[in-house]
């Protein structure tokens, strides 16, 4: 395998193994790493992974994930787990929007290793719901790359009670 693929594919292999072994039910990359699937490369220090866990309602939802990773030599590093070159943050789905984003995620791959990613429209609307400047920058980048449209974002925002946030964003950044 080419040397330049030896980093993120390690994360991909771990995630797929976690699903196979029942530690998580599903996963999808989101945040900056997912954004890069649709836009040009962006600088990011970590990889954000949306996960669904088998035991719903458990308070320490991340404990099985941390234990599984530790058993494979991947240790915690602050809020993340160091997987090779990447600090990986596992984010359990926490609302209807992230649940839907996970369910509708795309099947991508890193040089043949499967890696699921949140789609561009859900990336944008998740960004809208969080509302930091970098989230707005992400939405603009996704629109500029034509990986999603204002109409799609508007429709999805309405479905998740984010119409007001979308209207504010549109007035601020898109209206001439």
């Amino acid at each position, binding site marked *: 395998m080419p040397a330049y693929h030896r980093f993120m*594919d390690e994360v991909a292999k771990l995630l797929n193994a976690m699903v196979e072994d029942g530690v998580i039910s599903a996963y999808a990359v989101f945040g900056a790493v997912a954004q*890069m*699937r649709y836009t040009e*490369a962006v*600088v*990011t*220090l970590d990889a954000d992974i949306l996960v669904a866990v088998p035991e719903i309602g458990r308070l320490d939802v991340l404990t099985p994930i941390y234990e599984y990773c530790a058993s494979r030599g991947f240790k915690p590093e602050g809020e993340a787990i160091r997987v090779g070159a990447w600090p990986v943050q596992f984010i359990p789905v926490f609302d209807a929007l992230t649940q839907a984003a996970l369910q509708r995620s795309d099947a*991508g791959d890193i*040089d043949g290793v499967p890696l699921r990613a949140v789609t561009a429209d859900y990336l944008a609307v998740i960004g809208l719901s969080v509302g930091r400047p970098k989230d707005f920058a992400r939405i603009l980048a996704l629109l500029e790359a034509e990986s999603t449209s204002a109409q799609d974002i508007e429709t999805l925002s309405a479905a998740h009670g984010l119409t007001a946030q979308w209207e504010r964003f549109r007035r601020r950044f898109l209206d001439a």
Partner: protein
Amino acid sequence: MPDVKSILRRQTQWQNERRELSWAAKIRQAEQVREGIQAIRNSRKQHG
């Protein structure tokens, strides 16, 4: 005076070309930039 419109047009074309790279290639670009940032941070820590 440089032709600013021409420069911006070429920049847009270059950005579009970079967008067409594979997901893996773009991730690798990000990894290389991050390695550079971490090297700079480590260098600053060493020199105070």
